[in-house]
């Protein structure tokens, strides 16, 4: 699957890249854990709320253009062909 990062999540303190290809993960929870292992605690704390029961308040995760809140949340299943986009909370207009 392809994972894309945006805004400050591209900074070295977080993912340090725009995009990576990641081997298969069962769901968003597993992906978050694996990415946290690779990118470190700061990324983890941004991605997850305490206890890893839900996403952090400052992050938006989309699977194929759909926010996971409208799918199955942190348990949204993933497939190898999926595009996962990870944004911090942003606004403008």
């Amino acid at each position, binding site marked *: 699957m392809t994972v894309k990062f945006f805004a*400050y999540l591209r900074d070295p303190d977080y993912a340090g890249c725009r995009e990576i290809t990641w081997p298969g993960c069962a769901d968003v929870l597993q992906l978050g854990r694996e990415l946290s292992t690779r990118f470190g605690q700061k990324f983890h704390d941004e991605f997850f709320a305490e206890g890893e029961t839900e996403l952090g308040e400052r992050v938006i995760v989309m699977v194929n253009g759909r926010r996971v809140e409208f799918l199955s949340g942190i348990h949204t299943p993933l497939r190898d062909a999926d595009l996962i*986009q990870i944004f*911090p909370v942003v*606004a*403008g*207009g």
Partner: protein
Amino acid sequence: MNNGYVGTILRVNLKTGTILKEPLNDKNADEYVGARGLGTKYYCDECDPKCDPLGPDNKLIFMTGPLTGTAATSAGRYNAVAKSPLTGTIGAANSGGHFGPELKYAGYDGIIFEDVSDHPVYLYISDDTVELRDATHLWGKDVFETTDALNEECGSNFRIACISAAGETGCLFAGIMNDKHRAAGRGGIGAVMGVKKLKAVAVKGTKSIFVAHPEKFFEVCMDARAKLKAHPVTGAGLSAYGTMILVNIVNGVGGMPVANGRDGACYADADDISGESLTAKHLIRNKGCFGCSIGCGRLTEIKSGPYKSQGEGPEYEAGWSFGADCKINDLGAVCDANFMCNQYGIDPITMGSTIACAMELYEMGAIPEEDIGFPLRFGDAAAMVKATEMTCKGEGFGKIMGLGSYRMAEKYGHPELSMSVKKQEMPAYDGRAIQGIGLEYATSNRGGCHVRGYMISPEVLGIPLAMDPLVTEGKPALLKTFQDLTALCDATGICLFTTFGMGLPEIAGMYREAVGSDESDEEVLLKGERIWNLEKQFNVAAGVEKDTLPPRLLREKLPNGPAEGKVNELHTMLKEYYAARGWDEEGIPTKEKLTALKLN
């Protein structure tokens, strides 16, 4: 006065040269708050809704709010109100910077311009000294030249609001620019100023604004500022990346129109024109308006190449209109076109969208090349910049584009390809992929516009709650609340962006302590609803067309992306929206509703 207002309205008759100072109408100020609301109330009381927007009977009103220029957060706003020559609706255009506060420091809540002058003039205001001065030497100058010349003539500490040649020569989407780069941008209010031969207003003030409960007011203002500072968007994101940060996330949900909406709403090159790219390649520093802790403005530079230039912006909407909508992935060209719009004082949303419409018409053979003078294809950055320049300067085909996309497309037999509502171009979100924003465009009281009830906030950004963009449930009722709250926010004189980090309790709290009111939050919000209904009442009386969307959004299914196959379900939402508003099935405010709001 000790209630946020300074108590005086300037009334300037441009035909006779008479300048009167009259007391602020306290009852109207109480019921319509200020800025957008109070300006519209003055306008509706004094002008015929059927008047010619470019005739002498269309008054032009500058109005501040009770919080403008105070310690309230981001309180640098004023509104310019007139009947819009682009849409025929009430046209209230909102601008930041420092001009609004300066007008209040000079001792005036607002200015009402009547009739037309027989020669170019500008209004000079230095506290109690108010004069109409000859502006023949400024006529034809652009915004930057005019501002510099007036700062040389009046003093470097004067704040200038002005138009350029685009406003003078009738570009129907010319705006009024203040502090060089801040725009009362939409609806062609600058063309109204041009017809009046009013080149500029130069203002300097040294007086104070007093509020009803200074200590309590300061306390609620500091609480509001703390709340904004603590929020990830208003405390960090907007200052770091500006509004262009929206490019990737809106594109991510498949909601950023491409090629006039013809090619769907997923732009493959979005990251090339994103806030991340702008920040990495072109940002000099961020910039804030008066009293703003957010600082979303961008000072940017294209250091080399054919588009070498420096200026402010672009905002997300301009980034989209010159970028994805024209299929341009060259951020330098996008910035250059946007800089030109500031320099010549025109609305970049309508400009880019009109070029995109012309590109589609050209590619399908509806506009012959000899009319334009060169090929105008999607993806041609040089052609896009040239088309912008021609319109800014009113040259050749630019005169036709200066009428906006609807009138241009109508001339070439395809008005349905204008991506506009009530003849004003919709901004950077596709109503097929984001249902609620489609309803917002259709019902906006000034035509296609995103800042009358910003449904992108819940539907894409998840603020204050996340709503699925693909569904219609719950959208009409929420939109009504957003529209009323936005009208209230605009009327107070603070920036709409504060609402990403705070809400009605903070806005109503600052308002109450400033004006000395003991009204509840709900009673304060009711003033927003009153403003909305007043605007609607004007539009009905003016004979503005019904609430709808371009056929493309209602019938052409999105060809790709997360919302593939979707059209906007306006018919489903509109009925529920009118019911939530207490209007009849045709969208006309009922007598009962108007009575409840003290509007008849």
